[in-house]
């Protein structure tokens, strides 16, 4: 349901079930900030929502360039919202480049708001327009609200005596004010945000607030073209409680802190800057009040190694990167596996290979996570599915790493990392602690000692009297921990490392069905951030009476033990992935089932429609 298919209309506002709004402009236009502010107001209003920030790799591309367009999309509504939406209902385009690159996603009849002042000959030529699209009839299929925004902003902020550069920068707040009027959002949070952000720059603070209010007043007082009016989006029914917005990065940082508290182990986070993973380092670096140590290493390898060193010394080492950086860490990760030390590796995936699409999303590092190391180096792999889910997945990664003393790979992605969604704030009192047990007794101590149940090797940290011992990457005797090149011993050690990781399957939740029945015609099996799109697609298809279920896998290795029997209950299995088919091959290889892939590798998340179409095609075949 979109703004062009309103469900009722009273005298003042049209009521719609859900809306997709996209703000697009130059990367310097402040579109991400505008989107974030609008998201906050929308969450406070009570809609469910999901967002999709989509920005270029260039920090400040030349003004007006199509490759410099930065966009922020928000999908909000009165029903559960799990994706940022397929098609755009309202497009805010701050310049011709933003219009030309985003118009294709606007629904027919959708509303487009443009800054007429930005449609200069130069900007239009740079964007590739031969004629002015505001005048040549090419926008006739849409409702166009063309406003001289720059001019109005300059008027609104005139009393504050800003330089032209700073005055023009208030454009985004003016636009935000207009869109807030359009959807009846409160400006209070945005104003509070400006007040704190520019506390030391009163003239900039006041100018931005004036621009925001002026945009809102413009909507209220100006006679707008037919069909442009206030939309009412009813509040969503969500469980009662306290909520906040969170990005995946924030939730992941909080989750790592929570995990370290539940494990009673200090957190040592070592990382090297890489898009889109750096923000996790930033986030943790600002929480030194917790038992958190952060270290910006000289490179990816050093980051992984410093984390391993910290684990050896009794902390929980965590390292983080994106695909190419994880590749560099591979040798060190295998050292952690060989020496059986805890380690969490966070991979915020991006488009690849190589530098690929640093700011775009993909889930193409599953193969690397599962197989991307030398030798037999199996390790547990888990993936988060939404921004908020990053919190619980981080706790689970810490639990497995500290309990089994293994490196654990946590897969997130650029979409989840940056997108925000409302989060029912958890209470730490609801979580069961899992404190680590360091060895302290010299009697009978050997670095080769293992827990008979988990097979975890003893964790004896330096500084503990009587436990002096050596570990290293050379194969060790199963009995003594001394160097051993014995053939039988290597077989045994390889077996025990594998058995330890395989055994984690007994300690993870059974695979459940996210939506639908536990057997039937079709199971759509996903992992990671495709959750939202699959969820909506399956919901739509089930509403139409189709026999289709959604299974979402969090523990990608080891797989839940009941997954094989669960999948065998369906006639067909469809696996949508933002890669060329990685999980689908694992399922085929492990379970000998004829799972079918649905792949998309464009740097953009799946649209719900794309999965609905695939479900229909699968059920018809």
């Amino acid at each position, binding site marked *: 349901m979109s703004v062009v298919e309103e469900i009722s209309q009273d005298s003042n506002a049209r009521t719609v079930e859900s809306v997709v709004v996209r703000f697009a402009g130059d990367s310097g236009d402040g579109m991400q900030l505008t989107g974030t502010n609008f998201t906050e107001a929308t969450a406070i209003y009570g809609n469910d929502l999901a967002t999709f920030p989509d920005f270029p790799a260039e920090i400040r591309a030349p003004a007006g360039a199509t490759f410099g367009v930065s966009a922020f999309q928000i999908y909000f509504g009165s029903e559960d919202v799990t994706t940022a939406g397929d098609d755009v209902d309202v497009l805010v385009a701050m310049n011709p480049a933003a219009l030309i690159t985003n118009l294709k996603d606007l629904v027919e009849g959708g509303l487009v708001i443009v800054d007429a002042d930005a449609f200069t000959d130069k900007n239009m030529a740079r964007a590739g327009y031969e004629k002015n699209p505001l005048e040549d009839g090419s926008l006739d299929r849409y409702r166009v609200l063309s406003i001289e925004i720059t001019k109005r902003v300059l008027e609104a902020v005139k009393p504050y005596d800003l330089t032209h550069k700073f005055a023009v920068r208030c454009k985004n707040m003016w636009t935000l004010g207009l869109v807030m009027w359009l959807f009846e959002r409160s400006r209070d949070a945005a104003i509070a945000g400006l007040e704190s952000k520019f506390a030391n720059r009163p003239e900039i603070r006041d100018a931005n607030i004036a621009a925001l209010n002026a945009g809102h007043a413009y909507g209220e007082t100006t006679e707008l073209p037919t069909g442009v009016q206030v939309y009412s989006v009813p509040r969503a029914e969500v469980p009662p409680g306290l909520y906040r917005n969170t990005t995946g990065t924030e939730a992941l940082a909080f989750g790592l802190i929570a995990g370290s508290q539940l494990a009673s182990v200090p957190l040592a986070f070592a990382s090297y800057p890489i898009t889109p993973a750096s923000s996790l380092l930033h986030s943790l670096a600002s929480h030194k009040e917790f038992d958190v140590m952060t270290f910006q290493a000289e490179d990816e390898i050093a980051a992984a190694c*410093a984390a391993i060193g910290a684990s050896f010394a009794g902390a929980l080492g965590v390292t983080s990167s994106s695909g190419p950086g994880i590749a560099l860490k591979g040798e060190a990760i295998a050292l952690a596996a060989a020496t059986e030390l805890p380690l969490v590796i966070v991979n915020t995936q991006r488009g690849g290979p190589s530098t690929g699409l640093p700011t775009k999303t993909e889930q193409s590092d599953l193969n690397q996570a599962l197989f991307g190391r030398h030798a037999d180096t199996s390790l547990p792999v888990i993936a988060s599915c939404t921004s908020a889910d990053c919190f619980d997945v981080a706790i689970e990664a810490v639990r497995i790493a500290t309990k089994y003393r293994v490196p654990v790979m946590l897969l997130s992605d650029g979409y989840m990392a940056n997108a925000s969604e409302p989060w029912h704030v958890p209470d730490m009192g609801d979580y069961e602690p899992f404190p680590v047990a360091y060895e302290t007794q010299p009697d009978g101590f050997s670095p080769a000692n293992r827990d008979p149940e988990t097979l975890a090797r003893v964790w004896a940290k330096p500084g503990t009297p009587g436990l002096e011992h050596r570990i290293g990457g050379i194969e060790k005797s199963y009995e003594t921990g001394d160097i051993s090149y014995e053939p039988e011993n290597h077989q045994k050690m390889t077996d025990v490392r594998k058995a330890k990781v395989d055994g984690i399957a007994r300690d993870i939740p059974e695979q459940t069905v996210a939506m639908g029945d536990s057997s039937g015609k079709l199971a759509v099996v996903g992992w990671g951030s495709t959750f939202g799109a699959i969820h909506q697609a399956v919901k739509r298809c089930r509403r139409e009476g189709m026999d289709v279920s959604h299974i979402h896998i969090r523990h990608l290795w080891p797989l839940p033990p009941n997954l094989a029997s669960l999948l065998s209950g369906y006639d067909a299995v469809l696996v949508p992935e933002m890669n060329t088919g990685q999980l689908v091959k694992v399922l085929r290889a492990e379970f000998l089932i004829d799972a079918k892939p649905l792949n998309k590798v464009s740097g953009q998340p799946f649209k719900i429609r794309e999965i609905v179409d695939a479900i229909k095609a699968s059920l018809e075949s």
Partner: protein
Amino acid sequence: MNAPAKLTIKDFETDQEVRWCPGCGDYAILKAVQKLMPELDVPKENFVFISGIGCSSRFPYYMETFGFHTIHGRAPAIASGVKLANPELDVWVITGDGDGLSIGGNHMMHVLRRNVDLQILLFNNEIYGLTKGQYSPTSKVGTRSPSTPDGSVDLPLSPCQFALGSGARFVARSIDTEMKHLTEMLTRAHDHRGASFVEIYQNCPVYNDGVFEAVKNKKNAPETRLVLEHGNPMRFGQNNDKGLMLDPRTLKLSVVTLGEDGVEEEDLLVHDETNKVIAQMLADLRGPDFPTPFGVLYNAPAPAYVADVYEQRIAVREKKGRADLNALLRSGQTWTVE
């Protein structure tokens, strides 16, 4: 608690069979380190030896302390993590010319720059031993090896120059078989708070035998070694009648003989450990025209990284107050759904 019995060298020997080649210089270094340990005022359980890959990197297996034999070139990074997690530990990095200056050169540079409080012992034998004799980044031009059968053509680097260039605050050089001098250098390195870099000339009897013969040979030593002592004029020679003089116009060092051309002791350069310019000149000296300097080339302590990190953390905690995760989760913009 009773005062623990004084530890001896035996307390630092492991039951592992030492597997270096007969005659390897590593044996002597191992002995010197094991002998030094009981003299340092450190609880035994706080010693940690961390190494990379190569002959020298087997070292931790032979020390009855906590030890970690890691991966090629990465010991400085792993040691940094150990120290960050527990600053109380007394961490020693054992590396070689290939491990520390080739594959691990980047980590070496940054651990020195950051001034992480570690003792870094770089065993320099100017060759790759464990991979069977290829030339290393410190091999002299013309070194014949399996990978350079016609002689190497690329210029070597000076480990001490590298360390100084990376910002090291303590740089010393010694010789594997000079137990007394080596022990003194290790003690000085241990006393220095921050990253302490000690280059140890170490003979590889299998792949590069005698490469340091000119300075190691006791008979030649007085002529080929310049033993540095802070505050003393730089004198050497069979009759202790030679010295180094600095030409203030060209900033060049020259070897002079006392009593010749009117040269007196007051004309000689006096060693100043805190003077980086002198340290850099010394790090570059080599035979046959000059003696090779041994001793502390540079010692100018600066704030150590890990200590500063912890201080910063304490300051943040004082400012922010008690850490409460539930409160953090509830901070910022929140709303309640009834």
